[in-house]
């Protein structure tokens, strides 16, 4: 096996990603070639260095803090959901009021139109105070 091919395979060798047959071929080469042997030794040292480094401990409150954050999110989502539902109900109610108002208006309007507007109907209209009267009453 040629040096460049061996060098290309060394990282797989360190990671244990070569077949037994390939491993034998690489080992045979390394035993004879000082250059590739040095590369392999350094690679193994670097692997040991990597593995010797510890990770600091996780804060003991990590789980509690994380769950508190998720709980807060879940609560906000619930609230947002109920507000949306409420919002929808209000809109529905407002729509209903307008629709009823319109329907009543149409019924009255058609009533007035059908008999040409009797004096009795006009008398009803006369009982509704004008804006000026409303303001005068308020003083």
């Amino acid at each position, binding site marked *: 096996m040629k040096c460049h091919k061996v060098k*290309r395979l*060394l*990282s*797989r060798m*360190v*990671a244990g*990603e070569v077949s037994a047959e390939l491993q034998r071929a690489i080992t045979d080469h390394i035993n004879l070639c000082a250059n590739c042997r040095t590369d392999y030794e*350094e*690679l193994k*040292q*670097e*692997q040991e*260095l*990597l*593995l*010797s*480094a*510890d*990770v*600091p401990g*996780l*804060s003991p409150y*990590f*789980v509690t*803090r*994380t*769950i508190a*954050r*998720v*709980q807060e*999110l*879940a609560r906000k989502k619930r609230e947002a959901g109920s507000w949306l539902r409420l919002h929808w109900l209000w809109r529905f109610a407002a729509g209903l009021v307008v629709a009823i108002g319109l329907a009543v208006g149409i019924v009255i309007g058609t009533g007035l139109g059908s008999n040409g507007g009797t004096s009795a109907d006009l008398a009803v209209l006369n009982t509704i105070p004008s804006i000026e009267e409303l303001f005068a009453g308020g003083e």
Partner: protein
Amino acid sequence: MTDDLRTDSELVSSARQGDLRAFEELVRRHSAGLFAFIYRMVGNRDDAEELAQEAWVRAWQGLKGFKGKSGFKTWLFRIGINLAINFRSRRKVHEELSEIMPAGAENEPGTIYQQRVREELVKKALQGLPPAQRTALVLSVYEGLSYQEIARVMGKSVRAVDSLLVRARWGLRQILEPARKKGLI
């Protein structure tokens, strides 16, 4: 059945229904591993904790989209990888290898001092690698994943993973060369 006896996928399906206790058990179960992985990726404890917490928040929010094709841990680590790769620390990063000695460390007993130097060296070396190479190396060395598994987690081909690892090892050697000359390795 108590939560700690349930499998990940059982806990996941409960959590998807909004069961926070099941989710809490998942957090309890996988936080140390997720944190260690992210710490290797970003090299700072506070950053790693922040990112790990963010990963859990995203996991909670994305639980409905988790189809269970890969294991929960793989899926969680993918979230962690994305966060770590896109992360830019606001903290000061020392560039020089000569700065690796922690302040006052000379007064510590020899073995503790050596261990701290090694840890700083590793941190520095990993941070010096491009994100994709660093990810593949951390998954290989610390998570013990095979090339095939790394390929699955990273969404790459085995060939691409092999190439990333060859370049990572080569890069590592270049970065560690000054320390080797100083006899620190």
